[in-house]
């Protein structure tokens, strides 16, 4: 049953065969390198596009129940580590674009939320989202996806807790801390129809934004899949290199791509003998830490806290990478 869901619905094996047959009917030999690349490209673009549209729709519907204003209200009810856990969990379902991060930071801080809780929220938000969970199941299987999500939440909770204990409140820009706490507007609850309209709109907006990344990601994946020798990948990202995880993380941090674009690259690298933890570390680094979000945070926090934040995320990702590599056999 699980196998059926995984291979036929999520991985869409039937489609891979169908496209293969179609290309063969057109006279293309898919066992050649070029034929294989074209096959991989068409199949992967179609698969990821379908998954993306369905996923964004469902996810946006769920997210429409958790505007930041409401999430703040929920978080203020908890204390201690429970509040960090609530922050990490809500970070995964609260939708916001990068320019909302400063108002969110101000709103959270002034409502008396501890700095660590805000950071648990900020760390988990880009790294663990519902989309990546389903997409990862489609590519690497349920166990890997579940482990990714759990470990991502662990980094968010641990990172927030550490920042809390470092007492770096003075590292937050004055304009964030000083000021009245204002009650937030209770916006009118949307109707089911409005939620559906919102979800459809999100599908279109996200698709437009992410599609170039998918094309680029799949193109790179197709090249890796058919042209790069296995031995290169194995030596750099596989068991042959004990520093593979560190390397993958450091390369991934300055890169900025959507998770939908990184997955085809990850998939291709994995099939070529890269280790699972190394690949996941790369994906986490690409999605969790990016230059645009750093620039935004820089306005709100001082260098020391920003540095601590980056260091904690980097360390967490590297630890997770090695953990997955150790447990690789269990997942495959």
């Amino acid at each position: 049953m699980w196998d059926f869901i995984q291979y036929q619905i999520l991985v869409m094996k039937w489609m891979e065969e169908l496209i293969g047959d179609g290309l063969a009917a057109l006279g293309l030999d898919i066992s050649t390198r070029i034929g294989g690349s074209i096959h991989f490209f068409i199949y992967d673009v179609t698969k990821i596009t379908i998954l993306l549209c369905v996923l964004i729709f469902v996810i946006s519907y769920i997210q429409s129940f958790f505007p930041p204003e409401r999430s703040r209200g929920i978080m203020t009810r908890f204390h201690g580590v429970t509040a960090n856990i609530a922050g990490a969990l809500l970070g995964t379902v609260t939708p916001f674009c990068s320019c909302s991060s400063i108002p969110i930071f101000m709103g959270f801080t002034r409502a008396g939320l501890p700095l660590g809780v805000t950071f648990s929220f900020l760390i988990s938000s880009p790294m663990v989202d519902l989309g990546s969970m389903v997409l990862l199941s489609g590519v690497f299987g349920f166990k890997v996806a579940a482990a990714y999500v759990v470990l991502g939440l662990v980094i968010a909770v641990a990172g927030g807790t550490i920042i809390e204990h470092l007492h770096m409140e003075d590292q937050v820009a004055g304009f964030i801390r000083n000021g009245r706490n204002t009650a937030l507007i209770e916006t009118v609850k949307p109707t089911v129809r409005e939620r559906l309209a919102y979800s459809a709109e999100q599908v279109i907006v996200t698709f437009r934004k992410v599609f170039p990344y998918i094309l680029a990601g799949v193109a790179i994946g197709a090249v890796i899949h058919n042209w790069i020798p296995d031995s290169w990948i194995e030596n750099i990202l596989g068991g042959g290199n004990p520093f593979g995880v560190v390397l993958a993380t450091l390369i991934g941090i300055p890169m900025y791509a959507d998770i939908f674009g990184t997955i085809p690259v990850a998939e291709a690298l994995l099939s070529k003998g890269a280790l699972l933890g190394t690949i996941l570390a790369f994906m986490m680094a690409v999605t969790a830490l990016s230059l645009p979000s750093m620039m935004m945070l820089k306005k709100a926090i001082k260098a020391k806290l920003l540095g601590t934040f980056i260091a904690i995320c980097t360390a967490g990702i590297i630890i997770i990478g090695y953990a997955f590599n150790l447990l690789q056999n269990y997942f495959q």
Partner: protein
Amino acid sequence: MIIRVLGGGCRSCEALLEAAKEAVKAKGTDAAVEYITDYEKIMEYGVMSMPALMIDDRIVSAGRVLKAEEIEKLLP
């Protein structure tokens, strides 16, 4: 009537500003469209999701880029 678009200056905020201007034009009402990027003011209005739209003293939408037609319907 004053219409305020609240945002941090990103692409979606600017798209909402354009839509608001368009809506006012289409409706033919006499309304000033203001673009508020001062976070302190935004906080006072009680929203965190950008971009947000305010008509007079009421927040009518937050965290969404409305189309001009949608804004037109919200105008009195």
